[in-house]
């Protein structure tokens, strides 16, 4: 058999049937469910008198709407409350395992899947959420899907799909001090654009990727969707296995050993051909900051806001509009940009390593911005951070230490920016209004966000 890419292997091992035109039924091993994109799917099942095909493949959690302040008294906003209660009722009715709002295991769906070992190498993973690409860090084929597809997977355990093209993003060399997986992600998007990965499944490879922790790999795969790709993935190695061993949903004992033998094969074979390739030199990547309203509008922290007049014709108008929205003028040095709020959280950067990295930058400094929030990705991340004393470092400096959830990543709960407010955020989207109507988002790494909270403006963390 000819050399296969990781994507080929994952795809081929899940094809139930394939038509001549390439339309295939792909078997799904794991479906993650949250409150926003599932109610209409459960309703569809009920109306058609269908049951989920394989209940054990499902794991549900409320995350988008939950408050991140004390929630022992429930959710005050009636509309959010109905959505979370609907999830609870649907899970109870159909027998789906759910980590409810006040369960210590609750958290952002893309944080808890891996944390529980519910995401395993070789799996197909879907969720009604575009950042499902996160799970590809475990050499899984992970797709975000729409609500009709959520219902389809519930009813049939399959997804109708066509194979994408494959792209290898290779990052070689050693990252500099203060440069993180988030900066790799933003640098890749800056290079290929937000539509650069459209139609592709991306495999991240190279020595800089192998050197990343699982947390870093998840950050990178999380943002594959912002490059337009349907999926991002990374081969299995010891880092993957060390992370998974002993997690609640991971196999134990003999089964673990058996699984590891198969998982070790989950990498692209020597000489496997990709449809496209991108190469980056890790040493050249600087801490990144977005200046506009799309993740591709990004520069290095020691750079300046670009002048639209110097951009190509097709980018100029978008850049002009973005600068007006962002309240920025051309050629402003990034480190001169003053910040109102800081948000450290989201499925991109709310894992334990992100908490540690942000805390390490604080070094006894005090928050000088209006508000700085840390929202851990799950109850377990929060507990671990507290055991390590990180919460004290944050609160002593003036950060708010919150309950887990999506929070100000998309501002569906009470955590939002007011119009005109400028935020350094560790999330993944800087679209207009994403963090609140009129709010201005700059995407950065946890280190960069923490440093900005202390200084009141962006700082080059590679020089700290």
């Amino acid at each position: 058999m000819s050399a296969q890419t990781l994507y080929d292997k994952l795809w081929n091992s899940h094809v139930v049937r394939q038509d001549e035109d390439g339309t295939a039924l792909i078997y799904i091993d794991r479906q993650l469910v949250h409150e926003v994109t599932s109610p209409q799917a459960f309703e569809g099942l009920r109306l058609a008198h269908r049951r989920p095909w394989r209940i054990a493949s499902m794991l549900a959690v409320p995350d988008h709407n939950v408050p991140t302040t004390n929630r022992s008294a429930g959710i005050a906003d009636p509309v959010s409350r109905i959505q979370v209660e609907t999830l609870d009722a649907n899970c109870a009715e159909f027998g789906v395992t759910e980590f409810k709002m006040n369960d210590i295991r609750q958290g952002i769906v893309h944080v808890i899947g891996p944390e529980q070992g519910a995401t395993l190498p070789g799996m197909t993973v879907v969720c009604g959420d575009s950042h499902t690409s996160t799970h590809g860090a475990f050499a899984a084929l992970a797709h975000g899907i729409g609500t009709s597809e959520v219902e389809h997977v519930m009813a049939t355990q399959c997804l109708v799909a066509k194979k994408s093209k494959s792209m290898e993003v290779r990052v070689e060399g050693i990252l500099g001090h203060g440069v993180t997986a988030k900066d790799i992600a933003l640098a890749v998007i800056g290079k290929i654009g937000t539509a650069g990965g459209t139609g592709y499944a991306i495999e991240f490879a190279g020595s800089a990727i192998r050197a990343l922790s699982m947390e870093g790999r998840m950050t990178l795969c999380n943002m594959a969707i912002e490059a337009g790709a349907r999926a991002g993935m990374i081969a299995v190695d010891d880092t993957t296995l060390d992370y998974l061993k002993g997690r609640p949903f991971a196999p134990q004992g003999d089964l673990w050993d058996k699984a590891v033998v198969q998982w070790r094969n989950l990498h692209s074979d020597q000489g496997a051909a990709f449809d496209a390739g991108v190469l980056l030199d890790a040493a050249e990547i600087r801490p990144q900051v977005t200046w506009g309203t799309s993740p591709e509008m990004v520069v290095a922290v020691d750079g300046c806001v670009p002048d639209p007049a110097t951009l190509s014709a097709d980018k100029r108008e978008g850049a002009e509009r973005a600068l007006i929205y962002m309240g920025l003028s051309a050629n402003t040095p990034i480190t001169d940009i003053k910040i109102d709020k800081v948000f450290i959280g989201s499925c991109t950067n709310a894992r334990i390593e992100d908490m540690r990295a942000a805390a390490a930058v604080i070094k006894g400094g005090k928050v000088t911005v209006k508000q700085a929030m840390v929202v851990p990705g799950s109850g377990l991340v929060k507990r671990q951070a507290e055991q390590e004393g990180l919460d004290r470092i944050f609160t002593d400096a003036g950060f708010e230490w919150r309950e887990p959830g999506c929070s100000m990543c998309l501002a569906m709960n009470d955590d939002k920016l007011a119009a005109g407010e400028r935020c350094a955020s560790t999330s993944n989207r800087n679209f207009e209004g994403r963090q609140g109507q009129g709010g201005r988002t700059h995407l950065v790494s946890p280190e960069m966000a923490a440093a900005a909270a202390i200084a009141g403006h962006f700082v080059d963390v590679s020089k700290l």
Partner: protein
Amino acid sequence: MKKFTLLNGLVAPLDRANVDTDAIIPKQFLKSIKRSGFGPNAFDEWRYLDHGEPGMDNSNRPVNPDFVLNKPRYQGAQILLARENFGCGSSREHAPWALEDYGFRAIIAPSFADIFFNNCFKNGLLPIRLDAGKVEILFREVEANAGYKLAIDLEQQTIGAPDGTVYPFEVDAFRKHCLLNGLDDIGLTLQHVDEIAAFEARHHAAQPWL
């Protein structure tokens, strides 16, 4: 699902690249647990001058006269002409629900974000990829001619312009079949129950930890 066969519809031009699903239907409307009723809030932040929340009476809200869909000449539009990477961002199917509920049946753009593109087909909405040069011509024509309509024939895979130009387009055979016949994917997939069950048995025997 509604069938899609022939459509002779008024065209509205939305001249922006990277229109994301949050612009199509802002997040506060995602709290609904229903599938319908999103039309009045399609493009809410661009369309109205105040801040929209679920449950508001939209007929009393101040509209933004500068937003293209509010112009009298585009009322009743069924075809949306758009730019690159339309529908990027969140996977919310509420975006095609909102566009469909607003009255659109087809979207023409040089490129679409992947998940959005998929979601359209599940909701009787036809997304058509046309190369950027042709889209540019259509933008010029729509803006120059009030009442500009295009005739989309899905069976023939063509777009007919008033000046007689015919633009052929590509569409996946399976999706075309589903749209032409208004077929629901789940029903179709369940015709293969035995194959799925057999696959599942083999798959789990080989990987008993799943």
